């Protein structure tokens, strides 16, 4: 093909997407970087000036209630628990759905439902379900299980647990669909050969299924981790902005509060950068590690 023509084609195909991204994503990113070195807040919204690393120092040392390290650990717990259950439940259901069973498409359709519902509706609905007196979760606990009702939204641990339960419910269908796609691409001959060799289901799972869905699951898990780590909606709406008394925050909701409720723009920008760097390092290491072990198969 004519080289000139090819370059024009490449340019016209990629330029619109990247123009939008530069305007809405990359330019604000640079802007954010600048703000993170400034003293911008409600009092200095136009007459801000650069003050070096002070905001970053504040992020790591300021004795906020709750402190940075506490929230960081909580964010890791939040991300790990969520993604763990998303993947385990998702792959488990995909394995069940990948057999010849009656009503397969009906099951699949109904199981996608949590993914189809807008997140803010999910969050507000679950918040209602966690209500102490009228929420259906406590009603089920007291009526059918004869256990004492739980103060879901008033205690820090229970409120955090409530957020996790909501997010686990919301996230497993994505992993299920990704795993299902991966399972369908495994050729039947492999299982037939394994059957001839008299392999048990566990051996087939361990030696055929899991290694073969792995290349698809790794990027999905990376995305899942990044999305969960940055999931503002669920924490913010289920716990109503970090209630009780800011004890349910993960890093993103904490930044959101610093920026839009407390107007500490410089501080929020610095903390945002810290979150970004954490995720960047995680993704690079995780992708590299998983690719390194991929060669073993």
């Amino acid at each position, binding site marked *: 093909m004519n080289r000139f023509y090819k370059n024009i084609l490449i340019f016209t195909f990629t330029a619109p*997407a990247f123009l939008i991204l530069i305007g809405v994503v990359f330019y604000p990113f640079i802007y954010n970087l600048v703000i993170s070195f400034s003293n911008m807040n409600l009092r200095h919204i136009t007459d801000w000036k650069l003050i070096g690393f002070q905001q970053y120092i504040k992020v790591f040392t300021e004795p906020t209630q709750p402190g940075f390290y506490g929230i960081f650990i909580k964010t890791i717990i939040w991300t790990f628990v969520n993604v763990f259950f998303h993947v385990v439940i998702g792959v488990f259901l995909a394995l069940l759905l990948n057999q010849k069973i009656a009503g397969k498409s009906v099951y699949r359709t109904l199981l996608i*439902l949590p993914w*189809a519902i807008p997140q*803010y509706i999910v969050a507000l609905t679950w918040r209602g379900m966690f209500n102490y007196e009228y929420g259906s979760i406590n009603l089920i606990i007291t009526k059918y299980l004869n256990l004492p009702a739980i103060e879901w939204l008033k205690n820090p641990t229970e409120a955090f647990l409530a957020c996790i339960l909501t997010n686990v419910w919301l996230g497993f269908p994505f992993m299920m669909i990704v795993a299902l796609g991966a399972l369908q691409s495994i050729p039947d001959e492999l299982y037939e050969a394994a059957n001839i060799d008299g392999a048990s289901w566990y051996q087939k799972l361990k030696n055929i299924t899991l290694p073969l869905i792995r290349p*698809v699951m790794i990027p999905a898990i990376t995305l899942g981790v990044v999305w969960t780590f940055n999931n503002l909606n669920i924490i913010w709406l289920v716990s109503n902005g970090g209630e009780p008394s800011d004890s349910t925050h993960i890093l993103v909701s904490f930044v959101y509060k610093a920026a839009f409720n407390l107007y500490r723009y410089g501080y*929020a920008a610095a903390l945002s950068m810290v979150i970004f760097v954490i995720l960047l390092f995680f993704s690079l290491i995780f992708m590299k590690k998983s690719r390194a072990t991929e060669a073993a198969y």
Partner: protein
Amino acid sequence: MNNLKKKIIRIITHIVLLIFVIIAVYPVLQVITISLRPSDKLLSTSLEIIPENATLKSYVSLFTEQPFLLWLRNSAFVSFCVTITGILLASMAGYAFSRFNFIGKKIGLLSLLVTQMFPATMLLLPLYLMLIYLGLINTYLGIIITYSATALPFCVWTMKGYYDTIPTSLEEAARIDGCNQFQAFYRVVIPLAAPALVITGLFSFMTAWAEYIVAAQILQDSSLWTLPLGLKSFEANMSTEWGLYGAASIIVMIPVVIIFLLSSRWLVSGLTLGSVKG
């Protein structure tokens, strides 16, 4: 004996799937229940799905007493624009990334991935200040561009991954038959990439239809509100208007659920996350 064992396993499979279906569906039934409750029984300790004296009053008042139709129209307009933009730009950019080698390809693809790691709050503040400066606060243009950019990275990756699975020999054949590269793209490749286009469209639509936090900052004029902002306003005061909220949620869910159900067949084949190699 072996048959019996198989039968038992099948029954257990069905039971397990049913349990998960109940878990997946229950919160939705909960919203339906709330929307049907008569207004004097909104706080009820009953667990029935169809409540006593079920009524459609909340739905009626949603359309007659609340600006719900306005929100619906606003949301539909914004979502439609974002979906079209998403499909158009992602299908083109993904194609270039899949088929050609060019300077900056790897960096371009990586930068798409990196955007997913930006916390929403990081872009929100600069974006907000920027939109004020450009006079795009309280405009749909501002929010449509923002949503498109949010959805694009994932969409471009999905499209690129899917194009990678379509053999280039098909386009070469089309070229021999006299198509130029662009014709080969939209006559041969695009129809084959339908599953990925469905995902791209769905993802773009969902981004716009279900987004609350960005909308809350950009659309402050209540005549411009999209559905999420309207729904949240039922909850904002001390006493949540649960009946209205439930009814509105159901109406918001219906189009999304229908689209998801219609496309669930495509969903499985269209998400080709595996091909991340640059």
